[in-house]
């Protein structure tokens, strides 16, 4: 019999406990292992997910960058075909419809998904980006401007381009969205672009229009032309005036560039240059005087070489003038006009040297003449440093004769100053008759002049009742000392006749009517000075891209220094692309060498400091010195066709622009100093040798005394032309896409 061990109840119980412990241990271990496995799997998933995320982000950022780069490239490129310019047109249209398809992936970006397949990543990009324009609003303007419909809500705008690009990776659809602000702005500055010369504080250079306080009429003038070595007394006045001829023969006043000589409420007197003989002195400005401007004249349309008085030897001296018939037969008001020239006061070879007359004997009663000659007679030989209608072309066979200039608008209280000599001539008068002397009273009659042979004395009487004596008398026209008495008889310098009625008018800010319709608002203190202040105001708290009314609010890119800006211009690549309004920081300002390329995309360059500028030639082969006459015609043709898109505007906030070169084509310079109280050198030339400038100058004070002397050293005649397109009715715009992104959003959809 086999012995059988029968477990006792206690040992059975122990075995069961051990089994349970073992099972428990195993369970815990299994649980631990399962947890570890789960954790590892989660970790693996997380890493895989993180990697996918990373690759999706880098791909989408590259894709977005590519889209935006192409947007920036094409947005300002008019292209050659309609297909090339879909973006160009879209942003210059209402920009509210479906965004045009323009994007083609660049090879580098397009290759990424294939390259990443080797890394085990299956990228499925959606190459067509989702783009729309949002938040479109009109740009704001300074309060002193009246904004026409063209500008509001139209031509200048701000908004945001909302772009989303997408890719599917590892079964997940990733999207990257960003909003990029943009503005559509004019390449050129409103109001300023209309001007070939804008000097809003020229009054500081003419504290009084007489003697040493007159720093505007400072050019020694003598036939036949400027640039002669003056006699010793005039050594300080050797120089060349600024010539502002026109590059256009259009009858449109906007094509010639406007001029403003301020301040808006201060008078400026410009002495017209005189001549030795009628129409024989290129130096003369007297062609600007039309007999129709004289109220005393009713029917004479052209001056003639009028014999006014006799020399000691009995020869008649002829001057530019006219005879106005008086009521009695044989009675004539014999008028001659004189400009400011050395011949007027030269006792040896002057206009009066062979006669018993002297300027003093004719005009001594005129307070303006007295003021002019209070110290000496030198001012009689000094004409204006500004020739706002260019040189005299009366003897140029290529222009229609009689030469009457071109319709340039000169704004401001600007008067043409010259002298008028009137003899009252009657039968039997000896030696040219009786001088009609200056008198402030319009009803004045000079004492009767005795006749010979005992007949009744002759008395001057205007031809028609109501005509004033002052219209006929010898005087300094627009003299400056009698403005309160004879202001109605002052002659505005402006030749432009807006009403076409033969009236010569002063053009004020309220008359400023540019073709683009952006006028000054008389109800909001709309003066040129106010505009200059408001447009050029800078608010240090205004951030880039924030809305505002000034030029500052148009800036789309800020460069920390000139080096960064020069890189942006791409001068090294033969380009000069501004394409917008940019700002260059730094005390060093901006110093540019010659820019000779024709590959220019214009815009406004605002520089915190001063500017030094070499030549800007647009590819023309200028030689040092005055422009080769053979080059002049092609140059003028080129300027006539030069579009706004190729014009560069340089703005110095420090109010200092020094020109290293003296040849500038398609350039506007703006150098204004807020609150200027004295004459400052804002735009100057370092070594001018024949200045050729096509564009516009905007400053407070040109410092004519210094400029005219500089021009006189060896600069020769200069030429300041306007680029007609600057006054176009529809200003050229540029779309500025800002460099920053807003609302960057990377998400899984």
């Amino acid at each position, binding site marked *: 019999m086999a012995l059988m061990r029968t477990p006792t109840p206690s040992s059975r119980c122990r075995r069961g406990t051990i089994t349970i412990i*073992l099972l428990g241990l195993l369970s815990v271990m299994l649980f631990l*292992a399962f947890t570890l496995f789960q954790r590892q799997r989660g970790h693996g998933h997380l890493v895989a997910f993180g990697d996918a995320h990373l690759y999706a982000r*880098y791909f989408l950022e590259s894709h977005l960058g590519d889209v935006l780069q192409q947007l920036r*490239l094409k947005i300002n490129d008019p292209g050659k075909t309609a297909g090339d310019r879909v973006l160009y047109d879209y942003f210059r249209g209402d920009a509210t419809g479906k965004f045009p398809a323009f994007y083609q992936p660049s090879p580098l970006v397009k290759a990424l998904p294939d390259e990443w397949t080797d890394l085990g990543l299956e990228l499925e990009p959606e190459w067509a980006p989702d783009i729309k324009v949002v938040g479109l609003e009109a740009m704001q303007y300074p309060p002193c401007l009246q904004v026409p419909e063209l500008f509001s809500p139209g031509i200048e705008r701000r908004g945001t381009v909302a772009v989303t690009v997408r890719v599917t990776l590892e079964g997940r659809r990733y999207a990257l969205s960003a909003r990029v602000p943009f503005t559509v702005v004019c390449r050129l500055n409103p109001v300023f672009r209309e001007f070939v010369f804008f000097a809003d504080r020229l009054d500081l250079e003419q504290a009084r229009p007489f003697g040493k306080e007159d720093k505007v009429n400072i050019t020694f003038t003598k036939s036949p032309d400027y640039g002669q070595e003056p006699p010793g007394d005039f050594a300080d006045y050797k120089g060349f005036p600024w010539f502002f001829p026109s590059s256009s023969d259009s009858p449109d006043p906007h094509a010639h560039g406007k001029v403003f000589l301020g301040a808006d409420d201060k008078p400026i007197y410009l002495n017209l240059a005189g001549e030795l003989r009628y129409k024989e002195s290129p130096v003369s400005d007297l062609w600007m005087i039309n007999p129709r401007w004289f109220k005393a004249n009713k029917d004479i349309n052209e001056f003639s070489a009028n014999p006014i008085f006799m020399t000691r030897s009995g020869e008649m001296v002829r001057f530019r003038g006219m005879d106005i018939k008086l009521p009695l037969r044989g009675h004539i008001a014999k008028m001659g006009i004189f400009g400011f020239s050395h011949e007027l006061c030269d006792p040896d070879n002057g206009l009066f040297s062979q006669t018993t007359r002297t300027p003093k004997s004719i005009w001594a009663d005129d307070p303006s003449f007295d003021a002019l000659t209070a110290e000496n007679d030198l001012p009689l030989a000094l004409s204006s440093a500004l020739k706002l209608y260019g040189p005299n072309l009366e003897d140029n066979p290529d222009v229609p004769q009689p030469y009457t200039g071109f319709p340039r608008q000169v704004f401001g209280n600007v008067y043409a100053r010259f002298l008028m000599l009137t003899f009252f001539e009657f039968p039997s008068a000896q030696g040219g008759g009786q001088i009609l002397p200056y008198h402030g009273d319009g009803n004045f009659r000079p004492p009767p002049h005795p006749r010979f042979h005992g007949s009744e004395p002759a008395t001057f009487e205007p031809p028609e009742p109501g005509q004033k004596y002052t219209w006929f008398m010898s005087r300094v026209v627009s003299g400056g000392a009698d403005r309160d008495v004879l202001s109605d008889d002052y002659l505005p310098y402006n030749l432009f006749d807006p009403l076409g009625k033969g009236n010569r008018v002063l053009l004020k800010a309220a008359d400023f009517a540019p073709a683009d319709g952006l006028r000054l608002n008389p109800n909001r203190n709309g003066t040129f000075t106010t505009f200059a202040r408001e447009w050029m105001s800078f608010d240090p708290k205004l951030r880039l891209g924030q809305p505002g009314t000034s030029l500052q609010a148009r800036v789309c890119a800020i460069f920390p220094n000139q080096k960064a800006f020069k890189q942006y211009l791409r001068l090294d690549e033969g380009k000069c692309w501004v394409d917008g309004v940019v700002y260059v920081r730094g005390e060093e300002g901006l110093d540019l060498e010659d820019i000779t390329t024709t590959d220019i995309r214009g815009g406004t360059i605002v520089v915190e400091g001063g500017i030094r500028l070499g030549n800007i030639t647009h590819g023309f082969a200028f030689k040092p010195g005055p422009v080769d006459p053979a080059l002049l015609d092609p140059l003028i043709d080129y300027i006539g066709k030069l579009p706004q898109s190729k014009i560069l505007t340089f703005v110095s906030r420090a109010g200092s622009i020094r020109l290293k070169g003296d040849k500038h084509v398609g350039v506007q310079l703006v150098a204004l100093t807020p609150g200027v109280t004295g004459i400052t050198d804002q735009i100057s030339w370092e070594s001018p040798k024949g200045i050729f400038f096509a564009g516009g100058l905007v400053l407070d004070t040109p410092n004519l005394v210094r400029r005219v002397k500089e021009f006189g050293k060896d600069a020769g005649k200069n030429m300041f032309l306007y680029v007609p397109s600057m006054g176009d009715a529809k200003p050229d715009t540029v779309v500025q896409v800002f460099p920053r992104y807003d609302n960057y959003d990377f998400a899984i959809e």
Partner: protein
Amino acid sequence: MTMLELLVGLVIFSFAILPIISFGTSTTRTTYITGKHLMAGQIATGLLDRLLALPFDEAFTEATKLAGDQPHPVLEDPVLAEMVGHQALAEGRQIVESDLQKSFRFFEFRLAVDTDTGKAQPTRQFKITVFVSWRVEEGNEETRTALILQGVKFNDLL
């Protein structure tokens, strides 16, 4: 409980625990590798983002300076060295340096640059490829593996 029972129990337990231990080891190794992979990702993104943030020309100069077949030890990266050398870390520099040494001693990187023009100089864009490699087994160079990341730098200038 007899000795036999105990032995049988231990054998069963050992059979049960061995795969668990082996699994634990493998998990730890995988976690270690994952950690290294993540570090490599951080190094690659850091390097790429740093270059992409520079102005175009500067980015190209820097990238081409680092580009080539020769790998650079991560610890010799001048930016990292500059960061470690910062005065703010003066007190704990030794600890930081030793930690870095421990974590990154076998990490290397190299760069490749491809231009849009296919020539030496890009005009509008260039692609940066970052290779970051490390040893999976610290003592074995043959276990070196790499992470590759690419990004495109665009020229702001038109």
